[in-house]
């Protein structure tokens, strides 16, 4: 009886309400970086994102421009000929917020394709900049008074908070992956590189270990205690279609293969209150995946094109349950039930039992179905979705900020019917 009643419970529960657009912000250029939201000063949210024409925008929660910074670099005529004028100043990596001058306000840190790294104050004024010899497509990590980011000149740079070089680490290839911090016995800086290597350095730039995958790594590593013990693990996707889980010594724990490249960071979230972390990520096989901490698939949901942006896992309708917000290159934002939904293989006790294979005992003791991805809502935008973030408004409602490659930033909210 327990199996039947549980199954019926799992089948019920269609959600009411809808997702609607609160505002749209239109830039004059293609948006190239994922938007990032942050409380800049107490109670004041800021939304920052970069564009292909080299502008860093800062909006308030109502889409009013607080400031924008336009990259201006002197480039001689000959050098100009080597650049694609439409994309030369592109800001591909999401900006990082951090109070680097201890003024109680958060500064904005980002790099661009001209190889320069910028620190702007909370009013959008340039504090300092740092030059590298390659495009910067890696977001910065701010840790222990250090600013760490990768460059396509194959170096991982560590600067002090005033923009002076502390150390750099030369990798074997370009670094587009953003670094992450792993706090174990030793604090480690973890990042990937374009030739498929995952590196671990100590905080002085000394190599601790490396692990080789077969594809380019552009994703930021996600770090978490996935098994709910004290051990931290590294979860990172590769263009070889696999998601890798490594322990703090760089030893492979498990691997899960999808049918497409994995370009962005995975979300590590406990979706079912078992204290263990599930792994949610998108793939260029068009699917959003939810895996258990041991690497078995809980559910997947297929969109109509690549899922490049990192999904968000939040409770958008404030019902106490988490939803997965995934943007796809098919132009749609999908709001999925984080737990998935239970799909029956058959209805026990109703019909067809006699035709099921196996012993009668199997029917009553094993679950008669499986979990699959469940779409709650879908919102069609005007272009390819490259990133998302959220803010919480004064009514404690969550607003999703969607970055669209074609130059629009949408704010989507949940509304009860």
């Amino acid at each position: 009886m327990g199996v039947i009643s549980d199954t019926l419970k799992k089948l019920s529960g269609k959600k009411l309400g809808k997702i609607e657009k609160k505002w749209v912000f239109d830039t004059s250029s293609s948006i190239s970086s994922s938007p990032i939201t942050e409380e800049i000063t107490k109670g004041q949210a800021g939304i920052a994102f970069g564009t292909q024409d080299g502008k860093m925008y800062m909006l308030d929660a109502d889409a009013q421009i607080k400031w924008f910074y336009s990259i201006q670099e002197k480039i001689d005529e000959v050098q100009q000929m080597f650049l694609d004028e439409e994309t030369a100043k592109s800001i591909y990596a999401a900006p990082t917020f951090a109070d680097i001058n201890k003024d109680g306000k958060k500064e904005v840190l980002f790099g661009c394709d001209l190889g320069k790294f910028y620190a702007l104050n909370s009013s959008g004024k340039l504090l300092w900049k740092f030059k590298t010899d390659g495009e910067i497509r890696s977001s910065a990590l701010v840790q222990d008074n250090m600013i760490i980011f990768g460059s396509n000149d194959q170096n991982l740079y560590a600067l002090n908070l005033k923009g002076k070089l502390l150390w750099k680490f030369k990798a074997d290839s370009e670094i587009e992956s953003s670094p992450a911090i792993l706090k174990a016995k030793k604090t480690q800086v973890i990042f990937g590189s374009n030739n498929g290597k995952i590196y671990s350095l100590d905080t002085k730039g000394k190599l601790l270990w490396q692990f080789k995958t077969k594809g380019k790594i552009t994703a930021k590593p996600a770090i978490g205690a996935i098994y709910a013990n004290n051990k931290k693990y590294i979860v990172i996707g590769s263009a070889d279609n696999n998601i890798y889980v490594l322990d703090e010594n760089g030893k492979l724990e498990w691997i899960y293969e999808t049918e497409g490249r994995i370009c962005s960071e995975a979300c590590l979230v406990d979706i079912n209150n078992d204290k263990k972390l599930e792994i949610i990520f998108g793939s260029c096989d068009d699917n959003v995946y939810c895996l258990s901490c041991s690497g078995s698939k809980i559910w997947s949901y297929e969109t109509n094109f690549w899922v490049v942006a990192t999904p968000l896992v939040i409770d958008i309708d404030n019902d106490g349950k988490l939803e997965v917000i995934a943007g796809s290159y098919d132009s749609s934002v999908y709001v999925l039930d984080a737990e998935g939904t239970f799909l029956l293989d058959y209805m026990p006790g109703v019909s067809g039992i006699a035709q099921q294979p196996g012993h009668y005992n199997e029917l009553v003791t094993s679950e008669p179905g499986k979990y699959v991805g469940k779409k709650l809502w879908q919102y069609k935008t005007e272009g390819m979705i490259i990133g998302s973030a959220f803010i919480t408004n004064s009514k404690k409602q969550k607003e999703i900020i969607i970055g669209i490659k074609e130059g629009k930033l949408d704010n989507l909210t949940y509304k009860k019917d």
Partner: protein
Amino acid sequence: MIKNNKEMKRIKLYINGFDEQLQGGIPEGYVTLICGTAGTMKTSVAFNVLYNEALDGKTGLYLSLEQSAKSLLEHAENMGYDLSKINLVVMSDIAKLKATIQDIKSAKGGSLVISDLGAIRKQIKETKIGPSGDWLNVIKNIIKKVKAEAQCDLFVLDSLSALYVLSSFDDPRTKLFYIFEFLRDVELTTFLISEMPLDKSKYSEYEVEDYLADGIIFLQHTEKFRKVIREISIVKMRATDCNTDVFSLEYKNKKFYALQGGKPPLV
């Protein structure tokens, strides 16, 4: 806007006996591969189009990635082209692009612009290229500027094989798609010279070029009775009712001729 056959303007190849097999020539704005092994007159066929179009008042850009402008012009002189009849502009310094464009603009009628990228490459040091710098961008920027400021109509890239050495093609399918789209967007009638392997096993390096191009002109050597003759044929030409037979290709009395039926060469 979709053009029907009557509205479609065509660019002649200036090969007697061949243009009429293509409804008069190649549709304006198309991207065409000229493929062949070494010595099959790919460069000469492309140069011939730009020379004759310049006589007709149009401007063409010949971008040579390896052969120097000097070598190319010596070859043309020896074939009997009267270069004094056209406005010939040689571009061998990208820092002087503005002056070069001014030369084209000040000329009456059409011009033949030879961009000697080999000479430009010798001048440029790696440090000048910088982050995001790419020789492909140099090519695109030359095309855009010459097209926008000097009303250029035709473009020859000699050759695709040299381009593949000059720029990184990690993902050739995607990169070539965007290059072909760029060439269509700038609305130039384009000839891309493709060096084929000796066994003629493929028309282009990655083979995707065959599908992306609007047309393919195939040049080859064929041995007949211990004599080697050159041959020309159309492999494909979109929006064109064309004869795909193989023709003998001859250059005589300063003109190209195509002879049907694989006849022996003219004597």
